[in-house]
């Protein structure tokens, strides 16, 4: 596609439910990032992939968060046993190589009730 696509755009989950957020990066982009953006805050880094390799997951807030990119293209961010503090917009970005421009998707707004 022309840009980074994220689905769903909105997700409401009951506390304790598992969720999976999908990111389709721009075709051919090597680098893929996930960010968490709480209301009124800047994006906070979660994790980074170079192709299928997860090179940095230092930003994942707990072991309930898991990300994968098995074939080096589509990525999924999974959150297990969601809690209210997980409510945020989850942004995905991709770039052709490291330190080139990162293109962001529109995000998935997760609300945990």
């Amino acid at each position, binding site marked *: 596609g022309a840009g*980074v696509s994220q689905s769903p755009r909105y997700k409401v989950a009951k506390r304790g439910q598992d969720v999976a957020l999908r990111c389709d990066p721009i075709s051919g982009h090597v680098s893929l990032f996930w960010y968490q953006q709480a209301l009124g805050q*800047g994006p906070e880094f979660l994790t*980074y992939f170079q192709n299928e390799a997860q090179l940095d997951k230092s930003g994942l807030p707990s072991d309930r968060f898991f990300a994968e990119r098995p074939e080096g293209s589509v990525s999924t961010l999974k959150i297990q046993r969601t809690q209210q503090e997980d409510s945020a917009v989850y942004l995905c970005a991709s770039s052709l190589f490291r*330190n080139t*421009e990162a293109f*962001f998707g529109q995000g998935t707004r997760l609300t945990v009730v």
Partner: protein
Amino acid sequence: AQSVTQLDSQVPVFEEAPVELRCNYSSSVSVYLFWYVQYPNQGLQLLLKYLSGSTLVKGINGFEAEFNKSQTSFHLRKPSVHISDTAEYFCAVSDLQGNQFYFGTGTSLTVIP
């Protein structure tokens, strides 16, 4: 590690007036610097970036920023704002490997007719 401080959380300005959005960063290594804009319910869009070379960087929509290494600043400026510039603006920094982008907390620019 790097960090970014955006000193103003909200900036109201009248239409056709100039504006400056401030950004300071801290890092023990050389960095790349970016400004992103986020319109309501949209992803982040790159305005401009400093990688190397001239310290005055021109971006889209008439914005420019100046990298000042001695003051560790990268302030964003526009000589005459439009209503359509109303949005959230984020300053970001990355190391030269580009494995992460660290974002500031954002500045909400409101252009008043």
